[in-house]
């Protein structure tokens, strides 16, 4: 629909390509953002392998693994939602978007559960941190990274789900078609990036020192 062509673009193709490139550039910023905190974490872990291993054992592998599975499912449904838009299947777009949002919500729910466990176990750095053993200061550093990294990740998911609400509205108004699907395509890119962050986060934070 030419009514969806912004006035400063020559044609829909230019508009879509510009949107895609803009989102890819944004994804690069996210790679550097999370990558930098992974670097800091990696260095601290290298300095205190035993302390970090011990602290990491306080996390639940089961919950982390389930969350990984949930997020991978949501990536699948998101990819299928974009594909539905490319094939002009509005009902499918709506279905897959809702599925993605439910899965994202499930992830966040499990996250809330995990955080509540940490509150119960008094493992909140700075506010309420009780840890037995000689590794206490380094464990506090580990949990600082845990909360910052998973917290930022969760924040990105919340924003992503928020954007999907908007996409749902667009889809319900039949505005996402095979001629105009850039909004859902670029949201998909964002969502897959959030998935990739977790793909690295889960083994590096939950699975160290388990052997």
């Amino acid at each position, binding site marked *: 629909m030419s009514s969806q062509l912004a006035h400063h673009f020559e044609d829909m193709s230019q508009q879509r390509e510009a949107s*895609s*490139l803009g989102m*890819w*550039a944004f*994804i*690069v910023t996210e*790679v*550097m953002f999370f*990558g*930098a905190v992974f*670097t800091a974490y*990696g*260095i601290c872990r*290298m*300095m205190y392998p035993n302390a970090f291993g011990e602290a990491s054992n306080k996390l639940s*592998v089961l919950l982390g*693994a389930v969350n*990984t*599975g949930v997020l*991978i*499912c949501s*990536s*699948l449904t*998101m*990819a*299928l939602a974009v*594909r539905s838009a*490319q*094939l002009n299947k509005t009902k499918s777009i709506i279905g897959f978007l809702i599925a993605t949002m439910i899965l994202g919500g499930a992830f966040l729910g499990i996250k809330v559960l995990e955080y509540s466990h940490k509150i119960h176990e008094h493992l909140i750095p700075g506010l309420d941190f009780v840890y037995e053993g000689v590794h206490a200061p380094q464990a506090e550093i580990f949990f600082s990274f845990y909360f910052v990294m998973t917290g930022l990740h969760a924040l990105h998911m919340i924003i992503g789900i928020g954007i999907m609400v908007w996409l749902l509205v667009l889809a319900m108004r039949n505005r996402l078609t*095979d*001629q105009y699907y850039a909004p859902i*395509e670029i949201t*998909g*890119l964002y969502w*897959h*990036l959030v*998935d*990739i962050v977790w*793909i*690295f986060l*889960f*083994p*590096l934070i939950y*699975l*160290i020192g*388990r*052997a």
Partner: protein
Amino acid sequence: MSQVVPQKVYLLVFATLMCLTLVTVDVAFYNFGILNLWVALAIATFKATIVVMYFMHVKYSSKLTWVFAISGIFWLAILFTLTMGDYLTR
């Protein structure tokens, strides 16, 4: 309009990702010493790669998209390598 990826491809990628998740959890409980880290990273990198290639359509995208994707990884490598270099050579 960019390429429509067949549903089968998505499902195959999905299945691979789920299997590899199980593998990475399983492997973590065996003691391979320093290799544990490298195995975990290798699996995660492969998973991320197939997400990028198929879910994010980079396999079907323009060279420019490839340049952007690779630049991000490359620049992160600069940060990581030179910073690690400091810690490893002190």
